[in-house]
């Protein structure tokens, strides 16, 4: 059976939750659909080796920052488990938790191309002021991908 590979970028917002509900509703009963959750994070600052009092301060607090990132991974695992509880078999659900490489939209595009996803489920919040500074993720993704179905939850 040919599998449809669905990518769901997830950042723990209300609209992400709506998108997840949509994924459950649309794909949970479809045995030919595999879903991958994708959550990207900003890695903890690099510590320079040279003797520097500021870096020493960060070193002391680095554990806390890394713990925060680790907790974020636990939360994306919980989202994966929610998919399983709502009808997906374990072998059809996975997650990717990785540091941001370029920017979130480009990372999504790169992932779609490298892993061969057929469907992307994005969401859009209207009226966000940040669009003036960063542009819409969905817009950047839509114009950059080819031969991929993009579903947008609003």
């Amino acid at each position, binding site marked *: 059976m040919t599998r449809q590979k669905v990518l769901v970028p997830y950042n*723990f*917002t*209300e609209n992400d939750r709506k998108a997840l509900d949509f994924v459950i509703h649309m794909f949970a009963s479809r045995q030919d659909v595999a879903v991958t959750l994708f959550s990207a994070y*900003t890695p*903890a*600052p690099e510590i320079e080796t040279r003797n*520097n*009092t*500021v870096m020493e*301060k*960060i070193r*002391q*607090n*680095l554990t*806390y*920052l890394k713990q*925060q990132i680790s907790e974020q991974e636990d*939360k994306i695992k919980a989202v994966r488990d929610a998919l399983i509880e709502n009808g997906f078999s374990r072998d059809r659900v996975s997650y990717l938790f990785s540091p*941001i490489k370029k*920017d*979130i939209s480009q990372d999504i595009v790169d992932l779609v191309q490298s892993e061969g996803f057929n469907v992307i489920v994005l969401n859009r919040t209207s*009226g*966000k*002021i*940040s669009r*003036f*500074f*960063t*542009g819409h993720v969905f817009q950047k993704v839509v*114009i950059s991908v080819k031969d991929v179905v993009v579903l947008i939850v609003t």
Partner: protein
Amino acid sequence: MTDNNRIDIGVLKLLFDAVTGSNQVETMANRLTQLLVGTLGIKGAAVYMVNPEFEALELLASSGLSINYINKGPVLVDKSIKLASNREPIVVSDVSKSNRLQYPENAKAEGIQSIVSTPISLHGVIIGALRLYDAAPWEVSEHDVEYLSVLAQNLGITMMYFRLANALLAVKDSVDAIHSVWLRPTY
């Protein structure tokens, strides 16, 4: 520098490097909040932008704060920290003794004891806020407030740069989308 001061010129330089060295506004804001938490040893930090349509602060990036706290509800400009519409730096040294917060119960549940809010402004207009959160009462020194204000001013200029760069990229995309056939003379 007195014992009360947490920010020195070395810390400020590192924060400025994060602000000026990033090529994406979200990367810049995420890196900045991480460094604030890391260097000052505080619980969390966040950068907000003012959304004039909803008169609310919109989260751009945060570090050290839980998802529940981040999603606590709309942060209204005039209500989130009630003082002069957030036009001046505001220090809430002990949230349990303050009536200024919009979500005091959420702050308590998050383990936040003190908040410092510095407006991010440009040309006299408030466009955002830089907020620091600590798990202990914090008597922030005037020196640190001054340094945070300088940092916030630079954030305002940087955000304007990202706004213009984003607009320019949108124009470039539109121009790139024009097929050369439309540029040929028709006579």
